[in-house]
């Protein structure tokens, strides 16, 4: 058997069907009725005496009858071939229609299930309802919306349901793929950030001039950082990603941010950046995922502010008003152009010149931060007067 169809890798056939048999029946009946017309005409005309004598000879009658039967037989063969080769194939990724039109015209159409926007099934008259066949209309998304129509489909409601199942399945797969991709980018971002910090520590040791006590402190801090990083990654890989955050822990944002400021103050001051934290008196406690908030939100924002401020000030403010916890981080760094501002929180949304300032930038830090904040029912946004005018990032999280 020769394969009439090549399937894509991973593609499986879900349903194969032809037109309803009644369509072939109607075509066949029409041809058979045509078959009898000359015989009836000959019978009537010979009774009326209008047929010449030579046409009434047995040889001539046999010849003409055979010729007519041969023509009708060929017509029937073509009809049955058209019916047999008209096929609809539904796979897990495509709806394929193969249309055989006479013997010289054959067309194969594909509709990707991920592009199908709407699908309707119709029984157009009482015969179609009685024999349970009808028309299927498929609207696909594209540069110009495009309708595909399939007529004579047996049990069109069932076929529609099967296609809808494939569409839902494809949608779920796309969503899972996107989540996996986002997770991979987040892991990549985290790993890069820890490796960069470790590289900086190693560079400091290599430069020398560090006493034993400082060296020990540096090593301890690097170890603590790496442990924390690995724990955060395991936490992310366990499914506590930005898209599925369990709001179970009570998180003291003030303590968290204070620890981060202490952690970053030394590296900031070495760079010539003054890191300041201003906090109000009211408690800043939220309900949520401490690891996600620490590593994906506040650490990212503080790290970014220091990285994108060659020299100057980074001022962190933290306050609560009984409804929300308000966090802001203002820097006097390179600033953000209006063009970069549009894609700031999108996955892979690098600034135009961000790689010049921060070569390790993955473009997924702020996207992860946004996802994590939104998973906590909060919001995050940024303001900047433009390049070289610094930037301020704001985070609002509902209090516990």
């Amino acid at each position, binding site marked *: *058997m*020769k394969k*009439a169809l090549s399937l894509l890798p991973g593609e499986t056939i879900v349903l194969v069907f032809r037109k309803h048999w009644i369509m072939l029946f109607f075509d066949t009946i029409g041809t058979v009725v045509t078959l009898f017309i000359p015989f009836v005409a000959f019978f009537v005309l010979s009774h009326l005496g209008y047929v010449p004598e*030579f046409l009434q*000879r*047995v*040889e*001539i009658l*046999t*010849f003409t009858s*055979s*010729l007519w*039967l*041969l023509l009708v*037989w*060929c017509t029937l*063969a*073509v009809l*049955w*071939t058209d019916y*047999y*080769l008209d*096929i609809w194939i539904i796979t897990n990724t495509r709806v394929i229609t*193969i249309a*055989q039109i006479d*013997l010289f015209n*054959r067309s194969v159409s594909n509709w990707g299930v991920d592009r199908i926007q709407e699908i309707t099934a119709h029984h157009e008259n009482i015969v179609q309802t009685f024999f349970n066949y009808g028309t299927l209309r498929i609207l696909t998304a594209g540069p110009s919306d495009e309708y595909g129509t399939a007529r004579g489909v047996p049990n069109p409601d069932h076929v529609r349901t099967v296609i809808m199942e494939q569409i839902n399945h494809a949608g779920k797969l796309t969503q899972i793929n996107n989540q996996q991709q986002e997770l991979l980018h987040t892991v990549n971002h985290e790993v890069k950030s820890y490796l960069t910090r470790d590289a900086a520590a190693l560079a400091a040791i290599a430069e020398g001039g560090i006493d034993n006590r400082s060296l020990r402190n540096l090593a301890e801090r690097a170890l603590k950082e790496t442990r924390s990083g690995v724990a955060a990654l395991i936490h992310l890989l366990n499914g506590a990603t930005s898209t599925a955050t369990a709001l179970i822990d009570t998180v003291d944002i003030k303590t968290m941010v204070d620890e981060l400021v202490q952690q970053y103050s030394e590296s900031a001051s070495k760079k010539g950046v003054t890191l300041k934290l201003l906090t109000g008196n009211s408690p800043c406690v939220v309900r949520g995922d401490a690891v996600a908030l620490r590593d994906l939100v506040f650490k990212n924002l503080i790290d970014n502010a220091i990285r994108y401020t060659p020299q100057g000030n980074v001022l962190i403010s933290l306050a609560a008003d009984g409804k929300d916890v308000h966090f802001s981080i203002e820097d006097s760094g390179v600033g953000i152009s209006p063009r970069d501002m549009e894609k700031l929180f999108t996955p892979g949304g690098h600034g135009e010149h961000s790689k010049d300032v921060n070569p390790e930038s993955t473009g997924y830090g702020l996207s992860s931060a946004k996802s994590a904040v939104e998973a906590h029912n909060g919001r995050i946004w940024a303001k900047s007067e433009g390049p070289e005018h610094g930037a301020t990032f704001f985070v609002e999280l509902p209090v516990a």
Partner: protein
Amino acid sequence: MTETISIALWIMAMAASVFVAIVGVMLGYHWIRFAMNSYVTTIALIVFCFVALVLLVAMFSAAFSYSL
């Protein structure tokens, strides 16, 4: 008159043979190339050829009888 009709019958029979051969080749090509079930394809080809052959034999026999 009889001779003319006889010649016409032979010509028509031969034309019908050529026509059936062309249709048969076209059908065979489509069935073998595109059909997904080789058993159905084989049976369809055998039935088509058999019926067409019977009708062609009838036509040639009639033409031969007429020309005698």
